[in-house]
């Protein structure tokens, strides 16, 4: 089983992500509601892939991504940043934070599955 962590402060997005990823029986999906909780779950559960929303309370997605990539124990985790802003500047910001991939809302369930497959193949 490959652990995939979904992080978003909107419960329906987490439910959608869970439902989409459940189409692949090899994935175990875990969730977090903000960047801080994501870091704690990363340390405890060691997921192979993390999907991180950007705008979240307590700690946003870019900050969480930077901390994951700066921690030698977590840096190997593949991170995909999900943003509502389809702009070149947000892509640059995600890259600067160390993200391995980038998706924009609205994303399709099939797109999430494909991204998870690609990141797991590279993990």
């Amino acid at each position: 089983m490959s652990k995939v962590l979904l992080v978003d402060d909107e419960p329906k997005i987490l439910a959608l992500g869970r439902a989409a990823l459940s189409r692949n029986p090899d994935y175990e999906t875990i969730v977090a509601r903000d960047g801080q909780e994501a870091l704690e779950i990363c340390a405890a559960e060691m997921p192979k892939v993390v999907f991180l929303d950007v705008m979240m309370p307590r700690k946003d997605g870019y900050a969480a991504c930077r901390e994951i990539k700066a921690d030698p124990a977590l840096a190997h985790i593949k991170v995909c940043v999900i943003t509502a802003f389809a702009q070149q500047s947000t892509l640059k910001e995600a890259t600067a934070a160390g993200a391995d991939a980038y998706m924009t809302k609205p994303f399709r369930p099939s797109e999430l599955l494909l991204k998870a497959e690609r990141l797991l193949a590279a993990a």
Partner: protein
Amino acid sequence: MTGVLIRDVIEERDLERRRDTFVSVASHELRTLVTTILGFTELLLDDVHEGDQRRWLEHVHEDSLRLTSILDDMLDVSRIQSGRVKMTIERVDVPDVINDVIVGVTDQGLGIPSEEIDRVFDTFYRLKNEQTYEIRGTGLGLYIVKSLIEGIGGTLNVESEARVGSTFSFSMPESL
């Protein structure tokens, strides 16, 4: 006098900041809502293969895609009007058929009546032809195209005849 000017500049910057915040919040909130509507509908379409429920789901799916497109267009217009669109000039390979700096496309559609041709690049403008009510759109596409082309120093032109068709062409400055 100087005091008034400084106050005007501060108010203008405050207005710009509020508009950016509005666009940012609207973009995030609306895109999040569209993600769940579109996403759950697609998951249901995987499981519902026939009957009225299938058709209803297809209607929801089609309109959520349209909503996404309208949202993108409105946010693009907002960014264009606030001067937030940054364009980068890059060299690309183009097909051999494009050998000039003027590119045009001609259709054999409804055409544009001469009395309306000056308004087709206005935001939200739609032709007053009865047939166009059956064609969905927001009236933002041509405004966005014109703004982007003019943003890099080009020009967009249209020639049209009602019930015959239209030719849209754009030219780029050779110094790009």
